[in-house]
């Protein structure tokens, strides 16, 4: 199972790592209770500062997606444990929708795109 990191992506590396793990969890490729590599392993494989991966893991922990257990590493958290408010969850969707509107896409196209993406994510997570 791979995460992809792109140097031409404007997002910082820690964000790419966090987003990549989130996507894999959403698609069901990283199941509940699955172990994640230690910070040192990911940092060494990618050749980045230890803090870069630690920041990504902290963000995932803050979002309730992973649990960091001292001594036994990181595991994907139970989905039921995610107690984030709807408003908090809607925030990135609003940002993405704003970007699409500003890019000049029609509401119909946006709706189609969102439906298609949701369908893909939902299908893979089953």
């Amino acid at each position: 199972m791979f995460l992809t990191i792109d140097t031409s992506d404007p997002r910082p590396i820690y964000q790419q790592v966090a987003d990549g793990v989130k996507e894999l969890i959403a698609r069901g490729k990283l199941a509940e209770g699955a172990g994640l590599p230690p910070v040192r392993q990911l940092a060494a494989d990618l050749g980045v500062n230890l803090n870069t991966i630690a920041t990504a893991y902290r963000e995932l922990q803050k979002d309730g997606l992973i649990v960091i257990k001292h001594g036994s590493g990181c595991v994907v958290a139970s989905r039921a444990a995610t107690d984030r408010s709807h408003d908090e969850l809607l925030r990135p969707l609003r940002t993405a929708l704003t970007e699409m509107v500003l890019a000049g896409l029609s509401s119909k196209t946006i709706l189609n795109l969102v439906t298609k993406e949701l369908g893909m994510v939902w299908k893979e997570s089953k």
Partner: protein
Amino acid sequence: MSIDQSAVIIYVLFWIVRINGCFRRGRQPLLRGKEWFFNVHVQPDFYTGDGRKILHRYWMRMFIPFALDIPLAITIFHIGRLGLLQWLIVGLCALIHLNHLYSVELAERQARRFAVPEADQPVTSMALSLTPRRLRDYTNPYLEWVMALSSVVALAWLVRYYLATPEHHNLRLVFGTPLVMLYLQAGYLFLKRALVAWRTPTPRVQAAEHMEAREEARKYYLKVCDWHRAAVAAAIVFWPIALNASPAGLDRLRNIWFAIWLTVTVVGGVLVEIKRRQLAAMAARVRPVTLPDFLHQSDLARSPVCYQPSAPLLLLKGAHGYSLNLANGLAHLGAVYLAGLIVLFALFPLAH
């Protein structure tokens, strides 16, 4: 068979293995065909021009260990202290590997001047494996139990043997060799940990192939470590048996031990060669790429040693070669291991 005779046989075997190694290393630059020189994508006329000289110089450097070995071996045979051949082999093994690493690094650096223009451009996309690598995932529990139990039984037997009549036994003779063997075991475990931590940077293109080649190589090296550990455990078990044997029985035991060792070495050597070929074929299938340097290692690694706590690597690659990161946990473990080895050898003369 005397120790001198066995030393000569081991030395002859070492020469056979070395000649094979020379052929293998000689083919390495052209493993991917004429468009490549090791991992450098070179211009089409490389091997007809300057590349020819670089290749010849690389081949010539392979003979440096021979230049040291031959006069030393002649001296050893001349003075008749054939036991020294074993130490010569140990020294040459280290020299051959260091010489090869240096030689490949130098040849690649020289060849980069003739690389195709876009070859040095780092890839923009990398793949990152999310599979945790732990030592226990590469460990055979049955083998570990067998080695641990046999060592404990052998050591318990040695303690009993010594305590029965301590005035008749030399502490160093009874426990010296098994202690060194146990320390070697710890060294192999340390090496295994370093191999598990061995980084796997992977480009997005051919990610699965790159990962498979690296994983196969990792498993091979770990298996070689386990074979050596099994041999060390067998030596620990052999020790109390040897101590208990009569002088005539000891000679027979030593011959049996040597015959088993020789057979295992020859069979193991053939298996290793087959596996090495498979690994080389696997490595040749993946296209080498330059990966982005997020850490700006050339700024961090300006001297042979450095202290960079936030860099997760043991070795940082600078403009003029590698730099050992003293802040890395493996460097600390390595230092502790070396210190322990020195203490062990310092304590030896004190034991009677």
